[in-house]
């Protein structure tokens, strides 16, 4: 049992004993419960913006175009790198050492957000052979820069 000695005094020290048994009991139960219910991999979700077949809100009668809709902001994800279209400007971001140039894309998108803060979404055209991991990575970069990812795809042939 834990005890606190009050220091020097006459004769024996008066000890104040803290009863730690209930604390330890509580801790043990709590730790057991938390360990049993622990989720070691936190699964979350990444949200898509409008995509090729997003359902329309039936209650919304008047369709208002989002701000800066006339400004083209499109990201092509290809097997050899990214191609970013900002208005009439085209920036090619080829792969570096077999990996996508994430840093440059992130910096470019951040600049675009600074120039056009009202622009809400980045359209993404993705080649068929691209792995899902790279799709999510690009969407994540878009979200980091403040753009909602919108997937563009052709329909079935």
């Amino acid at each position, binding site marked *: 049992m834990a005890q606190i000695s009050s220091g020097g005094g006459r004769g024996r020290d008066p000890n104040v004993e803290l009863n730690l048994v209930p604390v330890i009991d509580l801790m043990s139960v709590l*730790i057991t419960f938390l360990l049993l219910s622990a989720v070691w991999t936190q699964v979350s*979700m990444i*949200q898509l913006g409008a995509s090729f077949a997003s359902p329309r809100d039936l209650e919304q009668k008047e369709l208002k175009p989002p701000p800066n809709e006339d400004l083209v902001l499109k990201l092509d994800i290809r097997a050899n790198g990214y191609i970013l279209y900002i208005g009439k400007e085209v920036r090619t971001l080829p792969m570096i050492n077999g990996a996508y140039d994430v840093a440059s894309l992130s910096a470019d998108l951040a600049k675009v957000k600074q120039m056009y803060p009202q622009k809400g979404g980045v359209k993404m055209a993705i080649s068929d052979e691209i792995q899902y991991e790279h799709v999510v990575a690009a969407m994540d970069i878009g979200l980091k820069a403040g753009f909602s990812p919108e997937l563009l795809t052709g329909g079935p042939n």
Partner: protein
Amino acid sequence: MAIFRPGQRHRYHNILKRRASKRGVTAILSLTAMVDMFTVLVIFLLQNYNTTGEILYIPKEVTLPKANRVSDLKPSLVVTVSSKEVLIDRTVVATFDEVKAATNWVIPNLRDQARVILEKAKADQDAKIQNRLRNIVDKTLGNEELDPNAWRKVTIQADKAIDYLTLKKIMYSVYEAGGGPINFAVAKEYEKNDATTDAKTQ
């Protein structure tokens, strides 16, 4: 004040020293370290505790991609795409090879199963909305607002190595069944310089 010889001394050396006397031996455990450890453990586990209550079943074959601008999971229809099969809520609807080889974008079994589940979800939600309207307690609490499109939400959890064409076929089938918006399940990754990275995009 007593003068002690320098060196290591147990905190209870005065008590232990009494062993020489005829009194009973009192062995005292130092619980401080254990309580400290318990406290740290409890704090760590509480921080990792899943507060949303939404837990996805992830098959062994599925390795989720990582992202850090994420939102909390919401209840929805879950479509799982692994390198072997496609599942809707743990029910296999097609094999991966079938979907990959298909020239038609619509996967009939996936679309039909998804449609059945979504219709059931819609009926459940309609019933819930009607019950809520009758429930005065909910009205007073201000909880009656319910997203009318909540039943349509679909979460796709796919292996990170899946090709985008296969994913497009699955998304197309889900939309054909009346589902959407679609969200992608990802493993949350923490940034070193920014611990609070939850995105609120809606």
